[in-house]
């Protein structure tokens, strides 16, 4: 059957996202829109993921722990994980590698961490829009080590995309998927080797995808087989982080 997804949503923890992007609001909006599988991918942090996992469970939505990493080259790369705890470990490595540049809330907004009751339980000090210390290839292999996978984000946008910054997809990059931005042109030749996902990259509630992008699965758990490299699934749990 068709499973409708949106795997690129920013919570209020991302400095550029609206304050309305609280865990309950995002999950309820996804539910209303008829989405079956969602992921929250904040910039360079995973601190809001635990609240989403619980709320999605309550709504019968499959939640994939995610993050949008800014690589050393300033390419945006989405990473998805099979297990929350591995995602959290990965997220901490990425956050720790950010330069010590403080967020200025008056310019970028608060970087709020929420519990599952939409209460702010803390904030992150470092500006999450900075570039991490890891290259695109390093992010990819680090994601694999954490039972995850990497998908270059909005590759056909001019800014912060692998094509914009690096000119072309590095041939040896171990990826199966690329994310396409629906509103930008894409050269079909560039993407013919890859599978495609289309997401909202929502920073506001209204931007979350309608039930338009779908994957054919027998059950929601098959999303991992679909998104992740099969050999990686078999290795999972044997890798130390």
């Amino acid at each position, binding site marked *: 059957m068709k499973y409708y997804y949106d795997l690129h949503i920013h919570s209020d923890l991302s400095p550029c996202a609206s304050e309305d992007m609280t865990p309950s609001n995002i999950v309820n909006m996804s539910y209303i829109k008829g989405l079956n599988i969602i992921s929250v991918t904040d910039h360079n942090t995973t601190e809001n993921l635990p609240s989403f996992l619980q709320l999605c469970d309550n709504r019968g939505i499959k939640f994939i722990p995610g993050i949008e990493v800014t690589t050393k*080259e300033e390419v945006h790369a989405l990473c998805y994980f099979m297990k929350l705890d591995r995602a959290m470990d990965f997220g901490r490595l990425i956050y720790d590698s950010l330069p010590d540049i403080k967020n200025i809330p008056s310019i970028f907004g608060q970087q709020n961490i929420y519990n599952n009751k939409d209460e702010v339980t803390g904030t992150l000090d470092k500006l999450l829009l900075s570039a991490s210390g890891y*290259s*695109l290839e390093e992010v990819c292999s680090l994601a694999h080590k954490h039972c995850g996978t990497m998908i270059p984000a909005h590759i056909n946008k*001019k800014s912060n995309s692998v*094509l*914009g*910054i*690096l*000119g*072309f997809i*590095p041939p040896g990059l171990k990826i199966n998927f690329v994310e396409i931005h629906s509103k930008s042109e894409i050269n079909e030749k560039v993407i013919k080797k890859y599978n495609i996902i289309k997401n909202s990259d929502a920073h506001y509630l209204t931007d979350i995808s309608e039930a338009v992008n779908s994957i054919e699965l027998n059950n929601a758990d098959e999303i991992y087989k679909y998104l992740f490299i099969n050999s990686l699934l078999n290795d999972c749990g044997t890798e130390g982080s």
Partner: protein
Amino acid sequence: MKIIDFAKKMDLYQLYDSKDDIEIEGVYIGDLLSIVMSKAKMNYAWITIQTHVNIVAVAELLDLSCIIVVEDMEVEQETIEKAKEHGIPLYKSKESAYETACRLQSMGIK
């Protein structure tokens, strides 16, 4: 110009140089490779802070005379290896892109 003289005059650290002589007919400064690919020209020196291995492929594609990585950015070993493989002179400078461009200008490169 002898490549050895060029590096000395420019106060560059050689990561790899492949040639005895270097021809520089112009300069391009840029870090977004998609833009560099559409703007830089043959025999241009390219000044950038980007160190990803793809920079070598871009230099190869456009037949650039050399790559100068500025701001003392750390260059990946893979990038240096690729430069050797393709014979692309690759340098590093502690100076900024602007200071590097000024040096090239003072050497008479327009």
